[in-house]
């Protein structure tokens, strides 16, 4: 069986997007913008997570401070222990 040549239709005529070079640019730009939005969302998630960590760390530091004395020097000097083993 021989393969018969069949001419293909001109795609540029059938697909207006391809027929219009500006449309191609727009598609590329849309893809780039979508990528940038994803990146930005990722960055925002990272920043939020970092802020959350920082906030947790600050909360933890506040909790720590709540357990400390008002006069660290006196605390340290009064913790007197005999020489052990």
């Amino acid at each position, binding site marked *: 069986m021989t393969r018969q040549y069949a001419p293909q239709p001109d795609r540029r005529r059938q697909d207006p997007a391809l027929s219009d070079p500006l449309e191609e640019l727009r598609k590329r730009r849309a893809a780039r913008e979508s990528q940038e939005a994803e990146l930005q969302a990722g960055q925002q998630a990272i920043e939020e997570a970092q802020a959350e960590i920082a906030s947790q760390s600050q909360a933890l530091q506040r909790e720590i401070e709540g357990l*400390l004395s008002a006069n660290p020097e006196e605390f340290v000097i*009064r913790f007197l222990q005999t020489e052990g083993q």
Partner: protein
Amino acid sequence: MDQRIYGVETEYGLSLETQDRGLRPMIDPGMLFNHMEAALLDRFITLESDSFGRDPGSRGDGIEIREGRFLESGARFYYDTGHLEWATPECRTARQAVLYELAGERTLVELARSVQMPKESLRRLLLLKNNVDYAQGTTFGCHENYLLARSIPFPRLVHELVPFLVTRQIFTGAGKLGSGDLEAGFQISQRADFVECIHSNTTRSARAIINERDESLGDARLYRRLHLILGDSNRSSYTNLLKLGTTGLVLRLIEAGALGDVPVLADPVAAIKAVSQDLSCQRPIPLANGGSMSPVEVQYHYLRRAASFLAGQTAGDGDLEILDLWCGVLDDLAVDPVRVADRVDWMIKRHHLLGPLLDQAGTDWRHVAAWSHVLAEIQRDGKAPALPSRAPATEQYARFQFLLDRHGLRWNDYEPQHRLYFALRERDLRYHDIDPERGLFSLLEKAGRVVRVFKDEEIAAAQGEPPPDTRARLRAEVIRWAHRTGHTGDVLLDWGRVAFAKRTLMLADPFAVAPSELNRFLGQDDREVAIRILGVEEAKAEPAPAERESLFKRIFR
């Protein structure tokens, strides 16, 4: 030996906290111990402990020792050299020993909380599980005990174990402020500064990497008890498990003669301090053969030997767990020590408690270290524990100007650095507060910053039950029997013996859980029959030569 006994003795720092979270000055630790002992008698069933002369009431240096009590868990509560001390029961594995150490901490917290404060201005009895007092520079210990085969010659033990012990601090250290490294301001170990020799038999001076004390507390012909006093008191159970577990594994290799050559250190005492001061864990330590290895490399050497050895053995789950933890911690330390900030005490403390305070103050470790040096010099000059809190007059402190110049410091920073100096030390001390509601380690644990090893239920269970597979179980049974039959005043307990009405039953095998004579004894409510049973079994184990020598010295000094 395929089996081992592990035990830990911890000396606690004692104080009284006031309502404003300060400390009361001039406390009497003996009095605080009395209150704790009274609380113990109220809340737990116990029996009197008697070391039968092994721990004399006074060592001739004015330091008081009180024998204390044994508890149902098999643990011992006592008073030694001005400290409340807690010894775990005999345990079969490192994991079990860490669990019983935690159970002891929890019991002590319960006792401390039940002590009535004599004044409204006082809040609570404070118990710190640490090793230093920053005001006077004293130290107190956390002693590890490992039952070893008597057949291991002591010199070989020292030769093969010392490089491991000197370098294990990279994952066992509790962290301490102040360092011989003038740029660090912080070091890995609390005890390294106090180690003065490779081996000695003393514990309050000339402290050694390996203590020579040789009381087996069992059949001395078969066993010796390796007593290590160089380790830190750990708050992290992960760190503690690494400390006991890796040491137990290395001892197993030594007993099996499977260690081969070890990297012998040129100067182990200098090395222990150098390793403690090296926060990178990578600085080379000089070896006796002229070469050098970093602390991490020395540990990898032992780890590889342990892994090869266990590959050819029937390794238990416990051994494999320790190998896994050991490998993991070394891999992390080799990349960046901050990666162990969720597991290893010294880095937990530095990363989560001390570092943020430096950030808040807008300074760094180099400046803190330099100022610590200056402040320590000024303090030394004043010969008083307190440092002047106001910036000193230039003429008064002119002689310190060269120190400031050397470090590039300005007197303007004196006051903030002075405040920071003490704020850091308070945080360090409070890291070791064992009260789970107030201690800073516990706070980090609750905040999910550090890895937990045991569940609360496991710890609670260990408070009232002894390990099921050591002679601690017998001790618990004797305690229960004495309370059931009303003989609490007649029985004295030691680690390896039960004395009843002047008759003594030796429990020389720490692995034995049911000598028949003790079972017959425990079956008797009748005092006379019980005495007869013990009388028949009365015996004394032959002390080992070193024990005899120690006894001789004690009697005739």
